[in-house]
C-alpha cells in the first residue's frame, strides 16, 4: 500500500534470555519522512535500532530496507546500503583523531558504495564539512579523550552522517545538550531532511520531538502502542498512562 516505504519492519521480536525486549513490532517509514520514536527508558528503542542496523540479530520478524529484505545481512553491509545510526552511548574510535573518526565511514562506506577513492583533498573537504556541521571544526586534530560528553555525541552524529545514509537514526543524540545546542542539532537534522534523507529521531526532549517529527511512534515494554500525527499521539490516553506510570 505504501509504495515508497524506505524501511518496513514487520513483527520484529527480540529477546535477551527469557526477557522479551521487542514483541512483534511493526514500523513503516516512508522515503523522506521525519519520524520521532519515543518511549520510557528500557522500552526497547535502542534494541530496535540495533536490530534494524544489524548490531543485534532479531529472532522473529523481518526488516525490509529500500525494497530489499536485509535480515541476513551483517551490520557493515546494511551501512553500505544506506542505513546509519548514532549510538546512544558514544562509541568513538579512541585511537584515531576526530577527523580520522570521520574518515572511517568515508573510506569504508562511501568509497565502497561508489567504487571510487576520494583524493586526499576531497577527503579533507568532506571531513571538514561534517566537522563544521556539528561545530567540531576546531577539534579535528584532537582525540576523543579530549572531548566532552556533549562533543562526543556530536561526533557520533557526524560519523553517522558521514556515511551519507538514506536513513539516519539518531539515538538520543541530544541528551545533555543545552537549549541552543538542541536547536543547532534540530536545524542540522532539518537540513539533512531537506536533502532528502529519511530520519528517525529517538529523543526524550519532547520539545525537540514535537518540533522535528512529522509522525511519532511510541514504544512501551517492547510493544508499539501508538503511531500517528504528533498531536494525536500525545493526546492518546494509553500514551499518557505509559508516561505517567513511569
Amino acid at each position, binding site marked *: 500500500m505504501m509504495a515508497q516505504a524506505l524501511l518496513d519492519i514487520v513483527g520484529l521480536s527480540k529477546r535477551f534470555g527469557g526477557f522479551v525486549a521487542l514483541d512483534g513490532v511493526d514500523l513503516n517509514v516512508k522515503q523522506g519522512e521525519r519520524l520521532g520514536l519515543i518511549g520510557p527508558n528500557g522500552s526497547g528503542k535502542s534494541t530496535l535500532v540495533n536490530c534494524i*542496523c*544489524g*548490531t543485534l540479530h532479531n529472532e522473529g520478524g523481518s526488516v525490509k530496507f529500500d525494497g530489499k529484505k536485509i535480515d541476513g545481512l*551483517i*551490520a*557493515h553491509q546494511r*551501512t*553500505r546500503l544506506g542505513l*546509519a*545510526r548514532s*549510538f546512544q552511548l558514544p*562509541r*568513538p*574510535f*579512541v*585511537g*584515531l583523531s576526530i577527523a*580520522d573518526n570521520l*574518515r*572511517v*565511514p568515508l*573510506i*569504508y*562506506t562511501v*568509497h*565502497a558504495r561508489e567504487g571510487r577513492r576520494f583524493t586526499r583533498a576531497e577527503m579533507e573537504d568532506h571531513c571538514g564539512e561534517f566537522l563544521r556541521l556539528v561545530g567540531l571544526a576546531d577539534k579535528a586534530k584532537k582525540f576523543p579523550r579530549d572531548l566532552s560528553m556533549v562533543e562526543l555525541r556530536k561526533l557520533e552524529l557526524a*560519523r*553517522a552522517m558521514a*556515511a551519507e545514509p538514506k536513513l539516519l537514526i539518531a539515538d538520543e543524540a541530544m541528551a545533555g545538550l543545552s537549549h541552543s545546542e538542541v536547536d543547532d542539532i534540530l536545524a542540522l537534522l532539518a537540513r539533512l531532511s531537506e536533502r532528502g534523507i529519511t530520519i528517525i529521531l529517538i529523543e526524550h526532549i519532547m520539545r525537540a520531538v514535537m518540533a522535528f517529527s512529522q509522525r511519532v511512534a511510541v514504544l512501551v515494554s517492547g510493544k508499539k502502542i501508538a503511531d500517528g500525527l504528533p498531536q494525536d499521539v500525545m493526546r492518546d490516553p494509553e500514551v499518557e498512562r505509559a508516561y505517567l506510570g513511569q
Partner: protein
Amino acid sequence: MRSSVFFLIAVLVGAAVFFGARFVHNEYIFFAGFVILQFIVLATAWNILGGYTGYVNFGTAAFFALGAYSTVFIHKLYPLPIPVLILIGGVVSGIVGLGMGYLTLRLRGAFFSIATLALAVVLQTLIVNWTFVGGSRGAYIIRPATAPLIGNYIEYMFLIMLALAIVAITTARVIERSQLGYGFATIRDDEVAAEASGVPTLRLKLIATTISGALMGMAGAPFPYYIGYVEPTSTFGLAYAVNSIAMPMIGGTTSWIGPLIGAILLGTIQQVATVTISSAVNLLIVGLLLVAFVIIAPKGLIGLVQDFRRSRGG
C-alpha cells in the same frame, strides 16, 4: 614519506648494517644478528595482528615452526634455495593463519588468545608424531659449505634475514598508512562501531591473520639451515611466543617502529645475556621487562616519547 622512498632508505640502512657487520670481522656478529633480525620479523608480524587489530596471538611458535618444518619437509625431498623456501613457508603459514582466523575470529579477547595457544599445541603434537620430518627425535639439516654470491653461509643467511626484516617492516608501514590501517585501528577500538561505519571487520581480521601468519612462517623457513638440527620442543618453544608479544609491547604497538625498537633492544639484551650469563635467564629478563612496561609504560617506548613531547608542547 612515500613507501617506495621508505623502502629505499630501509635498504640503504640494511646495506650499512651488513657491511658494518662484515667490517667487525667476527662470525659471531652474524650468528647473533641473525637471531635479532629473526625477532624483528616475528615481532613485526605479531604486531600486524596483535598491535593493529588488538587480537593477541599466543601461537607465534606454531607459525614459526610451520615455516621451519616446511623447509625440513622440502629438504628431505629436494633441497631448494632459501629464498624459495621462505616463499613456501610463507604460503603454508599464511594459509594456516587464514584457517585459524576462520575458526577463531568470532571469539573475542581472551578466547581468541586461548584458541591460538591450542593451535600451537595441536600442531606440535602433529609434528611430534610425523616421523618423515623427524618426529620427536628431530631432523638434521646439513648446511651447504658455501653460499651463492657471498661464499660464507652464515653471512648469506644473515643477509636473507635482513632482507626479510626490511620486507616485513615496509609491509607493516604500508598497512599502517593505508585504508587497511584505518580499518585495523577501528577493530582494535570498537568492532561494533566499526561495523556500523561500514568496516567489514571479519574480512579485515582474516587479512591480518593471513599476513601476520605468513610473515612468521617466512621467519621460520631459514631456521633449519641456521640451526642445523630441528626438533619440536625448541622449535615450538615458549621463547617465540613470549618474545613476539614482549617486543612490540615494550617498543609500542601502534606503529611499525615499536616492534623494531623492542626487538633490537630485547634481542640484543638476550644475546648479551646468553654470552655473559646463560641463555636460561633470557625468558626471565623478557618476562620482568614485560611486566615492568605493562605497569609503568603500557604504551611502550613510543608512548613514553609521545607523552613526553606532548607534555613539553603544553
